């Protein structure tokens, strides 16, 4: 039975699209058949991050309106044969999405995939509520800073009230994914500590992704970081988070500050 996962946050710019691509690619690498759906109508980014922007013919709006079939709109990833993308429209806006249309598309996707990952736009308006409406599980992406945590709290409240599952009395399984974690700043007390974030949000932790230049590099070349730099700390953190999503128990590692060789040498000399 397919699982519908929504990657949401409330706050913008925290790493939803990056995480959707990374988790989708990691799941595909683990053998799951995955489709990632971009719900950010008008401001689509998922196709860029996956390097598929030159192959978009039909999009989610076309399928919702019945202009195109799902098979015509789905784009297969060139590197991972289990990973597919359903892009958003760039010329329309979220008003073109309807609840029944989205429900129908998600239903169709459930039949042929193991995982349907919905990349939610920022905010709490129609795009975000439709992305979460049919979700079974949710990954709430949070930066360890106050405004992101408050917005994530709001989104958690909405996951418990505005989803089909919540309306039926069931619960959407929620996970927190902390991204852009900077160990040095956390040590100096400039960022919220992991424990504080979890205490405020009262939701289990899926993983901690460190702030990393590798993520930006991967984004710019249009390749998810788990494929572009699989040995980087960010990619390894995403892979571990994905394995936890699949049910494995892996101890949580808080990314430590990386001390480069030069720093160590320089410190020795000064002493």
């Amino acid at each position, binding site marked *: 039975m397919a699982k519908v996962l929504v990657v949401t946050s409330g706050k913008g710019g925290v790493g939803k699209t990056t995480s959707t691509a990374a988790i989708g690619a990691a799941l595909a690498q683990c053998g799951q058949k995955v489709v990632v759906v971009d719900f950010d109508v008008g401001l689509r980014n998922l196709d860029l991050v996956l390097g598929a922007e030159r192959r978009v013919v039909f999009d989610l709006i076309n399928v919702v309106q019945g202009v195109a079939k799902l098979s015509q709109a789905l784009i297969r990833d060139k590197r991972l044969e289990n990973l597919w993308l359903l892009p958003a429209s760039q010329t329309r806006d979220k008003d073109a999405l309807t609840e029944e249309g989205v429900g129908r598309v998600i239903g169709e996707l459930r039949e042929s995939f193991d995982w349907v990952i919905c990349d939610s736009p920022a905010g*709490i308006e129609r795009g975000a509520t439709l992305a979460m409406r049919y979700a079974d599980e949710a990954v709430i992406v949070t930066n360890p800073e106050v405004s992101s945590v*408050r*917005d994530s*709290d*709001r989104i*958690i*409240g*909405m996951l*418990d*009230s505005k989803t089909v599952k919540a309306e039926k009395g069931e619960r959407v399984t929620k996970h927190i994914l902390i991204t852009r974690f900077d160990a040095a700043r956390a040590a100096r007390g400039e960022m919220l500590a992991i424990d504080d974030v979890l*205490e*405020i949000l*009262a939701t289990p932790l899926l993983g901690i992704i460190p702030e990393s230049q590798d993520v930006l590099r991967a984004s710019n070349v249009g390749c998810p970081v788990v494929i572009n730099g699989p040995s980087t700390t960010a990619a390894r953190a995403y892979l571990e988070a994905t394995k936890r999503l699949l049910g494995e128990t892996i101890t949580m590692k808080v990314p430590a500050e990386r001390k480069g060789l030069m720093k160590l040498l320089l410190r020795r000399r000064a002493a």
Partner: protein
Amino acid sequence: MDAIAEPVTQPVRLRGRSYLAFVFTPVVPIVGWLADLDATVARSPGFFIGKPVVLDLSAVELSRSAIAHLIVSLEKKNIRILGIEGVDQSLLSPTMPPVLSGGRVCEIAQAAPERPEVEVRPQVASLLLDSPVRSGQSVVFPDGDITVLGSVGSGAELVAGGSIHVYGALRGRAMAGVNGNPHARIFCQRIEAELLAIDGYYQTAEELDQTLRNRPAQAWLDGGVMRITPLT
């Protein structure tokens, strides 16, 4: 020429006041409606005696004589009409109740007929929430206490007619005793509230004493002053 001092008369000061009145909306056939009214009055006899009643005639088309007849029928049942709504001024004679407009809808609780011989102990209602209250959620319970087994997020709101008990951190707004209950209190395990209010008297986070932060505390009204003291 003598200046005759005219007594200076104070113009009568006109004040406005709003009152809550019951509204009767007759429907056709009027005879049937009057029969239903009889049945209602029979269940609670004397209920409408002395109560202000407004007649809303927007659902029926009555002539002047029909309106006069209706008013008389109602008076025979001891129902006095305060005013008439939904009808043109021209249809009313000067002796009839005046035309009213601009009425606002109000909720009137259907009160059971009073039985003074039975002492009814007031039921203290209580709302229990067993999961955290998330930012942006607003919990309104004017009938009594609210108890939360968990934290209240920043940007969340609790509005209670009675007291508020939070078994966790209170980070949002808590307003207790909203129906005029100055004895209501607010309790929490960690006080990081944005705003606390009891019976209209409020205090924001700015005025909160720093020594109280992150400790169990209670807020209560002492006269017109809100006191926040640690709970130990």
